[in-house]
């Protein structure tokens, strides 16, 4: 038999074999050893190369190589089919109704989220953000804000005192004073932070809460513009169709002063959300601003109250209990 015939025989044997068991991986491996193994049929044919006349040897090598490549590739594709079939079989047996592999659920505290939302709204209309100390002297927390020592207005905010007549700030308005002491107008800031009130803890009050205060000082700042700004805020925060009212009130550091209420249609009543007003010229005098040139408005809101309205939370103490069953909802 010539080499050519031998090659033809190997080819046809291989084809017959591979077609008879296309998906049996064990048989396929036997087949690989029989034909493509180190002592397989192709290797044996290569071993006969020495007996081939020298001038035919190059052509014979080429044919043998072709045979090797063809068989290898036929084998590879057969193996690939086997793998695919195998995977398909395995996947048919998976119970896809089983639960997923769960990861722990993290969360951002609702106060943090509400603070972020409030900050974003005011950032979008040109307010910068400033921070200040939680423990401050009486001057910055009270006197500079036109709340003299023996004035009934002090009763509006029950105060925690520390040594030296310093206080746990009762509002973030102390930062107003620090800002104006250090910067020339015009200025436009909001001041988020934690404030303290010496009040008994109940479902509606806690000994601390979070406030965002705003201050804008410029030429010709008016009550009308204050209304415009807070109207925008209320619409962004509570929706375009929010019903809002400004009613006269009293804060020593603003005049005129107003409380802002939004209508709660579920409870059928007005809910107070913030206090505001035109900066009292006495405050400007205390920080050395010329009230014949500058006017300003200021406002302050409790973030807990807004978050309670937004998420319909009835008890303020939820915020500080840090129950996972509460936190995970936000």
């Amino acid at each position, binding site marked *: 038999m010539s080499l050519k015939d031998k090659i033809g025989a190997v080819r046809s044997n291989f084809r017959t074999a591979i077609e008879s068991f296309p998906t049996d991986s064990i048989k396929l491996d036997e087949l690989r050893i029989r034909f493509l193994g180190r002592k397989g049929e192709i290797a044996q044919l290569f071993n006969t190369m020495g007996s081939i006349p020298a001038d035919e040897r190059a052509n014979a090598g080429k044919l043998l190589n072709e045979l090797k490549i063809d068989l290898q590739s036929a084998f590879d594709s057969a193996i690939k089919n086997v793998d695919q079939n195998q995977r398909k079989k395995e996947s048919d047996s998976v119970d896809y109704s089983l639960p997923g592999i769960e990861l722990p659920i993290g969360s951002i505290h609702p106060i943090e989220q509400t603070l*972020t939302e409030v900050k974003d709204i005011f950032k979008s209309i*040109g307010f910068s953000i400033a921070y200040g100390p939680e423990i401050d002297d009486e001057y910055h927390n009270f006197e500079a804000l036109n709340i003299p020592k023996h004035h*009934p207005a002090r009763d509006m905010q029950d105060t925690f005192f520390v040594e030296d007549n310093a206080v746990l700030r009762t509002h973030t308005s102390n930062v107003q004073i620090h800002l104006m002491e250090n910067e020339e107008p015009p200025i436009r800031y909001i001041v988020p932070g934690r404030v303290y009130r010496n009040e008994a803890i109940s479902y509606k009050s806690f000994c601390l809460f979070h406030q965002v205060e705003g201050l804008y000082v410029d030429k010709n700042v008016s009550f009308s*513009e204050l209304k415009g700004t807070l109207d925008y805020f209320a619409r962004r925060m509570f929706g375009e169709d929010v019903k809002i009212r400004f009613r006269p009130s009293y804060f020593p550091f603003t005049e005129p002063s107003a409380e802002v209420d939004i209508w709660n249609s579920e409870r059928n009543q007005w809910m107070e959300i913030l206090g505001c007003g035109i900066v009292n010229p006495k405050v400007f005098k205390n920080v050395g601003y010329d009230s014949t040139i500058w006017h300003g408005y200021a406002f302050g809101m409790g973030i807990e109250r807004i978050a309670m309205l937004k998420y319909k939370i009835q008890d303020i103490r939820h915020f500080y209990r*840090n129950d996972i069953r509460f936190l995970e909802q936000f």
Partner: protein
Amino acid sequence: MRLSINWLRQYVDIKETPQELADMLTMLGFEAEVATDLSNLKNIVTAKVESVEKHPNADKLLVCQVTDGKETVSVVCGAPNVEAGQKVVFAKVGAILPGDFEIKKAKIRGEVSFGMICAEDELGISENHEGIMVLPEDTNIGIPISDVLNEKYAALELDITPNRPDALSHYGIAREIALKTNRKLKFPEVKQINPIGTKGKVTVNISDPDGCPRYIAGVIDNIKIGESPTWMKELLKSAGQRCINNVVDISNFVLLEMGHPTHIFDYAQLPTDTIGVRRATKGEKFVTLDEEQHTLDKHHLLITDGKNPIALAGIMGGLGSAVYDDTKKVLIESAYFDPITIRKGSKSLGMLTESSRRFERGADPDGTVIAFWRIVSLLKEYANGELVSEMIDTYPKKIKSPKIQLRKSELNIVAGCEISDKFIAKALTGLNIEWKNINDSVWECLPSSFRPDLEGEIDLIEEIIRVYGYDNVPVSTRYGSLFNYSNSDPKANISKVINTLSGFGFNQCYNNSLLSKEEAKLSGENPVKTINPLSENLSDMRTSLLPGLLTNIDFNIKNGNKNLQLFEIGQVHSQKGKGFKGIVEKSKISGVVYGLSRKADIHNETPISQSFFSLKGYLNSIIKRTLNTTTEYIETNHIEFEKCFTINVSGKNIGFMGIVDSGLMKSLKLDIENEVFGFEIAVDLLLELLTEPILFKQISKYPSIERDLNFVIDESIMAGDILDKIQNMEIDQLKSITPTNIFRHESLGENKKSVVYNLIFQDDAKTLEDKDVNSFIDEIISIVKVKFNAKLRV
């Protein structure tokens, strides 16, 4: 303040319903709520008690036959004052009383009751529950209660801001309503009365004119103590006052009518005809009307009989000189006391009275005269009193209202809209402000003596805008004046950390900053303490966030959540030096992990516990994610941790991490069984790093080569030390080195272990060849062999 609508009608017409009136007053700056409104009460009518019999089965109950003219029903009643023939308020079956209390047919001790005879408190008229409410004999029966009683008893509850002492009275509120509605304001004519003789001599001696700028006194004789007239009793009752006798009621009536506090002394109890006003001496004792004894000092202003105290000025009278049933002759005091003096005195004694409330906010120095004559004429009319002295007006320190210039231009700037001259004139007049035009655009104004809050131009501007109506000021925006706000939020970057932590499954907590002293001291820092704490448990400011987070772990374990990853960002305070200046405030971010990081489930049978390494992994990932850099840990000591490492980023120590000291849990009395792993990072240092811009590093396009090295070393040598050493060789091409396996076996020798490191090499500029890598490897091996007495395991 409880405001009787019927009482208001004495001075101004009221056409509004109670709710409409409350809304109007709220929008005028007097926050008002409806306190009593009987108009919506259905099935409650006037009725007559036909007969009263004892309940057969209960000693204290009665069975009454009650008729509304149409039908007679049986009603079980427990009131001691019910009598046959009385006209009463009867709630029929189906009536709903205030507080959503529905009247149903009921069987009480075997007797069926078809309704209820009402007491005042059940109708929301007063707190009185001493007996049923008895109506006048001539009351027609079968009439809805709202028709009979609402007129008399409808009332509002007002929250008056501290700047408006003038509004703490019915006349004061009537004045505001008249101004807002353009209605006429009526005040009962107050006449001066000529005294009958001058046998009631009084000398007033004010030794503290700052504390008492004005004191008016007068003596009234022939008083007949008795009941007040019905109209006055009804008004007082509708304003929530208890009636005592005609003299006391008259003083209370004038207080609630016009807001000026007066006091009436029993003249017979005064040893001399001298009234003194002076400061108390330190340690001086005094018993007030409420039978409380007080120890006083120089902060307290006293009214004396020339020597001994007879009243705490502006706060409360004394027990010894109070009016009793046998009082015949009285001394009337109508004074003006200094607000600060009264406030200090009332604060230090913890005595807030109707009188002190008005004086500390600023009474009307001229109101003293009107109040005096009002009292005199009412005593004459209703207590047979005769004035037997002149009105003795001692006014050592005149109080004048300031002259204020009001500029139209300023008003328009502040309002942001134009308010007409006509309106301004009307508002000023309505507010009892004397005014004249200096020119077209400037008014010169003199506020009335009852408005001490009107001190400057802005106060007048506020008043005009208030009366104009905040609702009528247009809404405008003017964002055109945007200016530079480059540093818009110095803490904005911290949100990256918050987002990353929550993304990794951490829950953010907000804890109370106030802890007990013991809890606050656990961090080893000296806490800032409050002088007037809410309780001992909440006395000091936190010095660390860990106690709060540990308490949260305990709370959640008790509520069934045993696997926790918590964090908090917040301020902590410590007292580093003396006083206010010695307080240091810092912003921290702390976190804890506890329990399992992964529970066993149907896919994996083995749960994975939180560990020192899971925390370390979280920190590495968080820092890699937010700062794109690696973290180093160096062992250290920290009072809050059993095992503690510093967290070093870019060569800076930004915080601590480790195994939280179990002693901390014990001190906090928490039931936490397993180890807690925690960290704390200084926010300011983190923010500094977060502000550094992230710069893109080129990605090498050349292939990397991976090698494993397996060293046998002494048990005492740490895998991390070898890793650090290799990293410190600063081979640029060494992209990463990771320990992948630790193996211990006797075949390695006693106290030996083998550690496998996986090393990845890559060059940014060329394809690395084996021989390049081999030379790095040889260098590494030789250094590790020498430094750590290591052998290569083949």
